[in-house]
């Protein structure tokens, strides 16, 4: 099935095939015959074979679906909205944030608090920047509004903590300078993920 066919949502124009499920038996004799037919048909053994095949594949072809979670992790979508990251400039190693305060303004749960000051060159610098993750709803507005693509959502989703409110400081979210080459660019909120086409699957209706 091609993608175009799949995207066709006009009800009535698709080709549906109805399965022949027959009519349920009514008299006692019919019911008995149905049981006999089903018993002799060997469907139960098909069922046995299906699980046996799965077991053999799992054992000998390594077709195992278990993810040993804390040790292995499934890849997440690039657009997943988890704990924020502060990106830094690749060229200078300086942080990208210009202290404009837009993220603080737009945050609907008022959880970003920041302060700025002039440095010795009379340029604005961020003197304090925290996000209260006890309040953040991970809406992504801060990342969307940021003119410098400085604040983005990273892939860190394990945010269980011992306290109800966890605060992240600017330095915690900043890309460490030695991990600069690993810094991932972010297209901005609303951008489709790079593997969007692969993720489209046909709805599994045909068993």
């Amino acid at each position, binding site marked *: 099935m091609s993608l175009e066919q799949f995207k066709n949502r006009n009800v009535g124009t698709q080709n549906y095939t109805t399965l022949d499920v027959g009519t349920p038996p009514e008299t006692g004799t019919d019911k008995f015959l149905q*049981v006999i037919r089903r018993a002799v048909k060997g469907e139960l053994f098909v069922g046995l074979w299906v*699980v046996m095949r*799965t077991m053999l594949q*799992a054992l000998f072809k390594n077709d*195992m*679906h*278990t993810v*040993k979670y804390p040790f292995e992790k499934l890849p997440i979508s690039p657009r997943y909205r988890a704990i924020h990251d502060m990106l830094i400039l690749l060229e200078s190693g300086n942080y990208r944030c210009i202290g404009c305060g837009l993220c603080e303004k737009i945050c609907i749960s008022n959880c970003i608090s920041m302060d700025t000051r002039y440095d010795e060159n009379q340029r604005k610098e961020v003197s304090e920047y925290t996000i209260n993750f006890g309040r953040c709803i991970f809406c992504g507005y801060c990342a969307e509004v940021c003119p410098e693509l400085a604040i983005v959502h990273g892939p860190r989703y394990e945010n269980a903590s011992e306290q109800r409110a966890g605060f992240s400081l600017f330095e915690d979210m900043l890309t460490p300078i030695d991990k600069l080459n690993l810094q991932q660019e972010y297209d901005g909120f609303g951008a489709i993920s790079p593997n969007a086409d692969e993720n489209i699957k046909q709805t599994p209706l045909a068993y």
Partner: protein
Amino acid sequence: METTLVENLPQVTAAGVIIKAVLILAIISALAGFGTFIERKVLAFMQRRLGPMHVGPYGLLQIAADGIKLFTKEDIVPQHANAFIFKIAPIITAATAFIALAAVPVFPDFTVPEFIPLLGGTFVPSIASDLNIGVLFVLGMMAAGLYGPLLAGMAQANKWGILGAARTAVQFLSYEVVTGLSILAPIMIVGSLSFVDFNNYQTAGVGSWMIWQQPVAFVLFLIAGFAETNRTPFDLLEHEAEVVSGYATEYSGMRWGMFFIGEYANMITISVIAAIVFLGGYDAASTFGWLTIMLKIAFFFFLMLWVRAAWPHVRPDQLMWLCWKVLMPIALLNILITALVLLG
């Protein structure tokens, strides 16, 4: 009536029987624990999972972890329960399951080496007690095991328990009939109720196995065996989706564990009976004869897990329908035909 096999063997003493009984208790309860591990592993593989992995190599020590958990859990007796009956019910299940094993040949016979003090030279038989009505005794004991779930469900003052108890009575009593009738035909052919005689009847290789003479009885016995050991597709007694945990709802800790051990011991017993009565049993003459029966028992045990992974379970009314309207008439017909053939 002494069976022929015993004559050329050393004298069975009381000490030997006691050693055997202790051995059965120790090994079968360990096997029951191991059975839970195997069950979890096999079910996991059949669903493309790994199963227990982290306690010990390949999760093998999971049994020990579970055992420690069961032993150290708080022992709760519900407020309105009949405490006495509530407490003895799991013992009935476990005890009857092990008593049934007394008349079943499990593990090869051997003589305790001479260098062991006190017991050296004692002959330990393969059967703790070679009754001449072995089959009857085992089936009767497994039937008596019905009182465990029944009393447990009625004593715990819990509606799920009552439902579980009612299902116990209905299911076990009905399928008792099918087990008895299905095994009657092989008994008529062999003409004895002793497991040793059954075994001796089938010593002439695979062709002499009872399953070729009595395929219908074999299938019926297997179906009824699944029902008697409360396995899927007949696990109505404690089906989680319907009656929470049935008769075991209010149980915790080791009392619950005893139900479990009893159930797994029953699975082993049914496997042993099926292996001896229908699949040729053990070969007492050869050295590795015992290995063959172990393999057969293991196969039946695996079959129970396999079926659990593959098949959905039936409704109680379907269970009754199957028992009284399908299995019992077929069993009766089978007996009738066997009798006619034997007479003719």
